[in-house]
């Protein structure tokens, strides 16, 4: 195995162009596990830790440009206001040691359905900034996940950053695991209220081949809130609406039975999380008045 250590982003892109099989590594919290278990023996490993701009973030007018290697700890500490859903999800990532190393770029690069960041990213909305020696392109998160551990990157592309919409309303993240910390998701759910567009977005983790949005549930809820004038009245969401939303979220999932849980439990739990997180976000929206 060859170990590439580019000193700059340009060098990294050049190296990736020359060795498309190179696996980028930053915190190593995902890649090293695969190597240790011998699930993966890449011919080239590309250490991105010398490319320090990957660890930076910029807060713009409408978006946050989050460097691919910004560790979860920094997201929790500094981006709670702008990215509340992702900050909550970051809290649930493994242990403090892992959160000090791992970042969103790793989750996106691996594109495992169990990555903790995905439901929050999907619910918040944004784009992946993918770069190569050929140039830079923006891939909407909605188009990024293609299959189990497959994403939309070309072989010569690296993830530079994600551009995430700054929260215009409350966001929540919830994850079921069979212990109270340091656990891989049995399933996870993210929700973001977007009062600016009067829409609701969601994200589901570990309950389909890829991270997905529960689009039917989103459309139903967006319409129901609109029809009842609740964005303006800030009145309570009727339980029947919350219940229907929960059912639609559960129905959007396409889970399997595995060693971590059953498909039917995953569906059930997603419904419960959907109802609760809707309750929490909507209450926060009402209280914010």
């Amino acid at each position, binding site marked *: 195995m060859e170990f590439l250590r580019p000193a700059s982003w340009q060098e990294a892109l050049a190296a990736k162009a020359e060795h498309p099989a190179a696996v980028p590594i930053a915190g190593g919290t995902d890649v090293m596990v695969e190597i240790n*278990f011998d699930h993966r023996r890449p011919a080239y490993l590309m250490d991105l830790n010398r490319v320090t701009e990957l660890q930076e973030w910029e807060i713009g007018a409408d978006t946050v440009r989050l460097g691919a290697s910004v560790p979860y700890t920094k997201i929790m500490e500094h981006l709670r206001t702008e990215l509340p859903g992702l900050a909550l999800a970051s809290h649930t990532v493994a242990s403090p040691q892992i959160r000090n190393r791992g970042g969103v770029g790793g989750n996106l690069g691996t594109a495992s359905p169990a990555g903790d960041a995905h439901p929050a990213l999907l619910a918040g909305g944004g784009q992946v900034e993918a770069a190569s020696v050929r140039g830079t392109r923006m891939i909407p998160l909605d188009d990024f996940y293609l299959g189990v551990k497959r994403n939309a990157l070309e072989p010569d592309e690296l993830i530079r950053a994600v551009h995430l919409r700054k929260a215009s309303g409350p966001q929540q993240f*919830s994850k*079921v695991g*069979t*212990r*109270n910390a340091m656990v891989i998701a049995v399933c996870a759910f993210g929700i973001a209220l977007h009062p600016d567009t009067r829409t609701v977005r969601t994200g589901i983790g570990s309950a389909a081949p890829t991270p997905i949005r529960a689009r039917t549930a989103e459309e139903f809820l967006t319409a129901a809130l609109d029809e009842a004038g609740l964005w303006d009245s800030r009145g309570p969401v009727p339980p029947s609406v919350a219940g229907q939303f929960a059912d639609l979220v559960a129905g959007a999932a396409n889970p399997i039975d595995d060693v971590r*849980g059953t498909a039917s*439990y995953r569906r059930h*739990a997603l419904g419960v*999380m959907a109802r609760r997180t809707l309750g929490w976000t909507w209450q926060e929206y009402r209280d914010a008045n």
Partner: protein
Amino acid sequence: MADQPRTAPARPGTSAAAPGRIPTSLTQGTGSATTKGGIGESTLRPDGILKVTGEFAYSSDLWHEDMLWGYTLRSTVAHARILSIDTGEALATSGVYAVLTYDDLPTEVKNYGLEIRDTPVLAHGKVRHHGEPVALVAADHPETARRAAAKIRVEYEELPVVTDEASATAPDAILVHEGRDDHHSGHVPHPNVVHRQPIVRGDADAAAARADVVVRGDYVFGMQDQAFLGPESGLAVPAEDGGVDLYVATQWLHSDLRQIAPVLGLPESKVRMTLSGVGGAFGGREDLSMQIHGCLLALRTGKPVKIVYNRFESFFGHVHRHPARLRYEHGATRDGKLTHVRCRIVLDGGAYASASPAVVGNAASLSIGPYVVDDVDIEALALYTNNPPCGAMRGFGAVQACFAYEAQMDKVAAELDLDPVEFRQRNAMEQGTIMPTGQPVDSPAPVAELLRRVKAMPLPPEQQWRTTEGADVRALPGGLSNTTHGEGVVRGVGYAVGIKNVGFSEGFDDYSTARVRIEVINGEPVATVHTAMAEVGQGGVTVHAQIARSELGVTQVTIQPADTRVGSAGSTSASRQTYMTGGAVKNTCEAVREKVLDLGRRRFGTYHPAWATAELLLEGGRVVTDGGEALADIADVLGDESVDLELEFRHRPTQAFDLRTGQGNGHVQYSFAAHRAVVEVDTELGLVKVVELACAQDVGKALNPLSVVGQIQGGTTQGLGVAVMEEIVVDPKTAKVRNPSFTDYLIPTILDTPTIPVDVLELADEHAPYGLRGVGEAPTLSSTPAVLAAIRQATGLELNRTPVRPEHLTGA
């Protein structure tokens, strides 16, 4: 012969470069003039800070110049004929020094085992479980060894698997072991039953006729892993005399030695074993792992060979706790007295016997719990299947039974509309109670009192997760995963109590050896204690120093590394080491003391009449009378002489259980603990937060109170683990392990570990050294059923299986 260790062979890796200091060879002192640091004090363990700061040298840190790395090729299927093994390509790999298969074993002894020698050193003709060792590679780099092993081509012809009682004992079932001729094979109902132990006492049928209520239940206990710190590892160094020096993390050096030497074709004197840094054991190191493999490779290559399992391999490298299916029937009269118990306990022993026969004996004899029941009909058995081998784990057969009988006790109490604690107290055993085996309980058995104490502890406040800023999710089910802010959360409280035997039972000649020396160094008397006791985290080395201080009146005690230059200390298991090797240290110290006093009488007897007339003690570095008068300094008594003795210590003999009736005085001592669990359950998501696990335990005498509380809290947490998360999942169709990693085999984190208030009772057992009672296992028993009882109370569900998974609580 390749490089010999240049320094004393007892310490490979003691160079500054390698953090290989063997932690048991520490001189522990208290720096006090009087005899401080004796028994009853909470002296600190020498390995504690090293472990917490990451500086402790585990056996995996061993290093030797020029050493090779061993790797074990394991079966990828659970049950198959081996048609061929082609090692050619592996042997041709650059950097590979040896590739060994069954055909390379040097003697006619090709199997090993704790009680039944049914386990092949390397698979021969057949593999019987997933992950069975098939071939060994030694290479100059661990990665080279691993890659070479991947080039070994093994051709399997898969066989059907037997995975449970129905498949294993069917008339046409494929036999896991053909042609059995072990000492249990004559009395078992089927060749796929390792051992069966019935216990019949009184007349259960007649007693059942008197019962006002009869409660039945079927229970399932999942397969738990010891999940100890420090996966299996060791270093084998070939010696010039043709023997081998083996440094290894294990639980019983001499038991290993007895199994290793014949396979190597060496006399035991040429296999010199030294305990290396052990992280933990919990029974998982009673069976051999890399010991013989490392020695074979070292003797073949003439080079030191180190083998280190990673965590994945460790799940295949040791036995697990027997999963069990238990069927119980309890009867009681309206006034709350048990009439009878019938039970049947089926343990899955997996592919090899390991400790299964003894686990069966425990499960049977302790199957009804710490209660008075005169009429019982009991049967326990262990199966041979193609599942992973199961054997010793903390609680050893008593754990599975306790889970079931305590669930039954709650059910009967509910039928009688009695408080579950009150019902248990009405039936609690006490000193004088006759066990189902006919053996009287001849030391304190404060079962009712332990229950009273644990119930009397104040309950934790309700809804501790409520804060002024909202819900503190860390205190709620789901924890940091943020699944509830209080929605669906219901509290439950449950109780349980258990009984565990201490020491080896059923007629086993259980003994420990201690060598103690006292001499003057720099004007001060110093004691040296040498045993072969495996320090696996239980704190034995701390206690040995305390005993030597108390018995010999010295301050400075050196604990020698545990090795086979001294006699056997028996196993660090069965809650026995403080009793047995602690007892041996005490016993030898007393003999040493008599020699010191004899020396004093000879030297100074004429100067003071008390030398002849008074009861003399060694205290604070001096010889004193029982009246407190100092007669001489120990240093002056000894002068240039030293006293050095090695003696064996035995507990009272026990008897085998009758094979038909189960009658016999099989046990030495019992240990009792009671728990109260307080849980909060998210009833919608099926997630559990254990809020508190209060424990009361009788320890006879707390030699080191801090260590005692640590043992109780650790055992309690291990019991919690198997209540709510820990389970090795085996595919019933293929018998393959599905979750051999800490990613999917979950053990409690600190956020899952509740506060554990501990109430320690000290009622002396007059038969035991200092009156002490083994501590380590009892808290593991009652913790699990207490948590289950609390979850049942919170949810109203029956829950006859452990661990409880979220889908069991939600019905989804």
